[in-house]
């Protein structure tokens, strides 16, 4: 097996909460290979976005470390692209300029203006927004904004793609198209993708591995490998069984959390 592109070791993460401490992640480890799509599933508020920020070098964990290409990864890296949960477009730039934002930064490989234009045009074409390229963010629908943010990541042709619920605002058909696009890109460029979602079906459609986060503080409750070819529409049965298994684990963990909370309350009383 080749060495992983991105590796997280025993991450612990929390936030100051008033005078106290809110532990969010505990002892999280994983690794990401080139050409692999890994999804992180978990209920709302479990710490998925926080984890993504740590993996993107935007936030330091309280304990543990992240390595990128076997180097310590402590600050954002030009080969890593992050799509945040919120599309986060700059209102003074039009769609095209938003997609190209950052391409001319000093940290990026040097490209001529024509090359940059081509990359932007290509990315826009891929997400199907060429027709709207002159529009400004306030003239876009939620789904269009989300696809613009995705295109901004794709235009940089990163080695690692960290996506935080990138298809949440899309309709079924467009979501299917974007998922297919992601699979194509991973095949063509051997990108390593970590995708956050709370949609089990999306995880089943896309990933080679599914990590389920749960508990408080959260850890990896379970991990599933899915060794099925794309597109996976022909494997509904196998996926269906997996789906039930994942759901069960999820339900079990949330019941456990609730029970723990009740016990805690009783202990306090």
């Amino acid at each position, binding site marked *: 097996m080749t060495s992983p592109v991105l590796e997280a070791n025993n991450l612990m993460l929390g936030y100051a909460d008033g005078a106290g401490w809110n532990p969010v992640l505990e002892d999280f480890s994983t690794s990401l290979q080139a050409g692999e799509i890994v999804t992180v599933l978990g209920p709302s508020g479990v710490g998925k976005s926080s984890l993504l920020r740590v993996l993107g070098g935007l936030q330091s964990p309280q304990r543990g470390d992240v390595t990128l290409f076997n180097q310590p990864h402590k600050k*954002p890296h*030009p080969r890593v692209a992050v799509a*945040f949960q919120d599309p*986060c477009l700059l209102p003074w730039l039009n769609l095209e300029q938003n997609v190209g*934002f*950052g391409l001319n*930064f000093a*940290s990026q490989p040097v490209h001529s203006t024509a090359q940059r234009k081509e990359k932007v045009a290509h990315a826009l074409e891929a997400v199907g927004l060429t027709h709207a390229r002159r529009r400004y963010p306030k003239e876009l629908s939620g789904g269009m904004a989300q696809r613009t943010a995705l295109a901004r990541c794709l235009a940089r042709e990163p080695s690692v793609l960290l996506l935080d619920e990138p298809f949440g605002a899309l309709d079924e058909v467009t979501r299917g198209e974007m998922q297919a696009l992601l699979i194509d890109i991973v095949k063509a460029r051997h990108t390593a993708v970590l995708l956050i979602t709370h949609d089990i079906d999306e995880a089943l459609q896309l990933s080679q591995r599914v990590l389920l986060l749960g508990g408080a503080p959260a850890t990896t409750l379970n991990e599933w490998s899915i060794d099925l070819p794309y597109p996976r529409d022909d494997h509904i049965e196998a996926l269906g069984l997996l789906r039930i298994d994942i759901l069960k684990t999820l339900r079990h963990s949330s019941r456990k959390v609730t029970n723990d909370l009740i016990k805690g309350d009783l202990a306090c009383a």
Partner: protein
Amino acid sequence: MTRIIRQAALPWLLGGVGILTLLLFWWAWLGPLDGLGRLGNLFTPQATLASLTELLRRAELYEHIAASLQRVLVGLGLALLLGIPLGLLVGASHYVEWATTPVFQFLRMISPLSWMPIAVMVLGVGNKPIYFLLAFAAVWPILLNTASGVKQLDPRWLQLTRSLSATRRELLFQVILPGIFGNILTGVRLAIGILWIILVPCEMLGVSSGLGYYILDTRDRLAYSELMAMVVLIGFLGFFLDALARIAYRRWAKG
């Protein structure tokens, strides 16, 4: 349809009525001054209007207007050059903000005109002390608006920029400055209002051009209808400048 037009026209109509009322008061107020005789007549709207049309035909007037506008521009330019960087610092760091707020609030409350004698002593007579006083008056709204713009910047934009491994320079020129452009424009608009008000008294000292100088000149020549015409003209130009700044802001806000 007609209702919409009527509604859109109403503010303009009422504005016109307001101006007419002002003229009426001006005209009526001079009645009791009848005792001034011939002198009183020089202050009437009719005499003022006659003088104004006559003044507008003189090339000399335009030189004075140009001199005044040039001073406003230089003052504004200096204020921007000073106010934006300072505002960025104040907005970016709590420590700078805490250290400078009392100083700025103190300085801001001193009428710039109080510095006039000192400015003339240090910078000599001529344009220099005027530039200084104008910049000193105009720098505050620009500084404070820039600082509050930086504080209001969307943290998500900063996070995005950081995730793209931007340098400080790229962050400043591609995110912070465009992000606070509206605040700077607001500051400029307020600054123009202050500049125009400060300008006229500033020009009454040690220069031989500009609208302020011309006011004193008409007084010395006892040309009172001309003086009134100048007062009206100053009001018009100020009104025009403010409208310009407002239109610029609205154009930008519509973007």
